[in-house]
């Protein structure tokens, strides 16, 4: 019984572990581990930082993808969860560290569940009253919610958020996470003969956070993939495609929406906490409406409901302009100052245009999930094909349990 169910699930998910795939994943894994060593060694320190920031965006995009891509609810205030995770983590973390200084190195890791819980609870608190709202109303309410959170933080509510000046307050520092101190003192090496200036690697805090963020991204991808394949994921798909039909087939719409909201929020919260610790600082400026829009952009451009899509989207939205700016600033690619600022200025203009054109010509995104693509392009016949294919795979696979 359990085995049969598993097999149906694997058939529904994107594919099997072919040797090609294993090789590809290994290559990607090696590249992810090696990149910061390479960049730090050759003195491109900015790249590790940018990659870490892109990683945070990947987490955000994957989290929002649960809400927008899987459940089909447009959330324009997602950045609020990022803010709540960051602030909850820093405020609670500082309090814990103050009362138990011995916990110092563990504070960040202990705060992960705290930030996740705060974000999930806010997700529930937002989700419960707005469940009955239709798509576009929901978008507006979430937008209003995101703004309310930012304004409350900005107004130094209850005297704990320190208003526009941000946290931690002057003179207070977030404790260094486990192992960072040791790595900074011990993990470095140099290869004199390599490159023009030699190869000098030292384990900076950027490298540390890069690896933490990569691990968190891998965790996110794993969980999100499992969610997509789960019973809950299938009820999201059903709900997204036709709420009334799904409801009459026994999908609990209320429950499915609440799960989507809080599970999406969790990743925003964890990313926020990590952002705060990585930057050593949070202020309400980081959580404007435009940031929410960028995350939505990443999901839409990459392809709603698709994990590789969310990653590509985050890389394009957050990574490309930063990487160009970083390379130009360090003189690796010859660009003048005004050209660099033109690139970052035109970024938003181009994104706006891309969103419009994307909806007209390729609403399914760059790397769409197959199922979502057929929903967004109802005129093509893919839906029917995919349905029968899934059915075939499911029947085919039940014959070979344990594959």
């Amino acid at each position, binding site marked *: 019984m359990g085995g049969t169910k598993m097999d149906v699930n694997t058939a529904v998910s994107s594919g099997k572990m072919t040797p090609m795939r294993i090789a590809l994943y290994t290559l990607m894994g090696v590249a992810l581990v090696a990149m910061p060593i390479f960049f730090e060694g050759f003195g491109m320190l900015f790249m590790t930082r940018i990659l870490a920031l892109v990683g945070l965006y990947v987490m955000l995009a994957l989290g929002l993808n649960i809400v927008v891509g899987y459940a089909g609810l447009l959330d324009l205030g997602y950045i609020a969860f990022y803010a709540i995770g960051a602030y909850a983590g820093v405020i609670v973390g500082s309090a814990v560290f103050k009362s138990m200084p011995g916990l110092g190195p563990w504070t960040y890791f202990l705060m992960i569940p705290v930030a996740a819980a705060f974000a999930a609870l806010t997700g529930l608190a937002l989700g419960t*009253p707005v469940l009955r*709202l239709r798509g576009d*109303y929901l978008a507006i309410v979430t937008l209003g919610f995101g703004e309310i959170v930012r304004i409350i933080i900005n107004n130094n509510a209850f005297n704990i958020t320190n208003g526009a000046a941000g946290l931690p307050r002057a003179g207070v520092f977030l404790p260094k996470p486990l192992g960072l101190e040791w790595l900074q003192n011990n993990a470095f090496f140099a290869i004199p003969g390599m490159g023009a200036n030699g190869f000098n690697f030292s384990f900076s805090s950027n490298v540390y956070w890069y690896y933490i963020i990569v691990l968190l991204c891998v965790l996110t991808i794993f969980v999100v993939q499992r969610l997509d394949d789960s019973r809950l994921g299938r009820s999201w798909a059903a709900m997204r495609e036709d709420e009334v039909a799904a409801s009459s087939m026994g999908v609990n719409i209320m429950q499915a929406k609440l799960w989507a909201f809080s599970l999406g929020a969790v990743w925003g919260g964890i990313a926020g906490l990590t952002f705060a610790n990585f930057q050593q600082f949070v202020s309400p400026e980081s959580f404007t409406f435009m940031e929410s829009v960028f995350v939505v952009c990443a999901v839409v451009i990459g392809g709603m409901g698709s994990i590789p899509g969310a990653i590509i989207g985050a890389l394009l939205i957050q990574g490309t302009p930063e990487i160009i700016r970083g390379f130009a600033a360090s003189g690796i690619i010859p660009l003048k100052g005004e050209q660099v600022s033109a690139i970052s200025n035109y970024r938003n203009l181009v994104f*706006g245009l891309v*969103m419009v054109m994307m909806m007209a010509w390729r609403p399914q995104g760059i790397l769409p999930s197959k199922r979502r693509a057929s929903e967004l392009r109802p005129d093509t016949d893919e839906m029917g094909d995919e349905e029968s294919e899934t059915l075939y795979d499911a029947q085919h696979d039940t014959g070979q349990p344990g594959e």
Partner: protein
Amino acid sequence: MLVNLIIAQLVNGLTLGGMYALIALGYTLVYGILLMINFAHSELFMSGAFVGLGVMTLLTSSKVIGRFPWLSWLAPAQQFFTSSGVGVICMLAIVFLVSMVVVGIMGVTIERLAYRPLRHAPRLAPLISAVGVSIFLQNAVLLWISSSQVPFPNPLGNKMAFSVAGVDVSVLKVVIIVTAITLMIALDTYVSRSRMGKAMRATSQDREAAGLMGIDINRSIMLAFFIGPALASVAGIFSGMYYGSIVFYMGFLPGMKAFTAAVIGGIGNLRGAMLGGFVLGMVESLASGFISTGYKDVIAFGILILVLIFRPGGLLGESVVEKV
């Protein structure tokens, strides 16, 4: 004292409410016909302010002629527009008319390019497209016009019209309130009496049936996308004159609040949007007078969320039936 404060805030509320109502009408017109939230509407309000400023500068500033000598034929007109009270009124009338037409055409163009191709797409698609248009317009103004606050002249000056219970009411406030109400009555009459208004109402009731009855649906939709932005541009110019400066992101908050106003009144309902605008303007100025200016935006958003949850149909709207 308290009475003075209340009256002063009520007058501010009416002024603010008039502007909100003018913007809200655009949301409600488009929503009534297409069932979509025109996210770019707040940017059309902003564009209206910028177009208005441009026309006003052209009509009044001698620097323009100094910089562009080929415009020297404008000099006598500028003389007329700046010298007398009649001239100022004529100038403002031209500013408003040009801005309404330009922004109205912008609205129709946006509909044609960004929304019409998506008319049969899932509901999320036009919404995302609208967010894209909004980002594009904001950044176009930021890049090509100005990235900071631009001063906006008030040709009416700081003259006081009359005073109520010791509270002075400026000419500008009276003009804003009177113009807003006049435009609303005109729109209401047009939609309920004229042939085109009838066509618009039919289209909003049932698009397909209206099409079968020989109504040009696209014309109705284009008209909604012309009138809404035209009214928003009036609000944009008033907002510039009222606050004294305009900036590329000025549309966001008034846009959100006008949407709130449209929802309070019952989205899709024209009279509801007018009522909602005034209600929200009053609530907001009373709240900022008596509670806290820092939280006045939170109060507006809070009202939006509460109305959507407890009375999604709004004050005057019929309950929205989800179509299967």
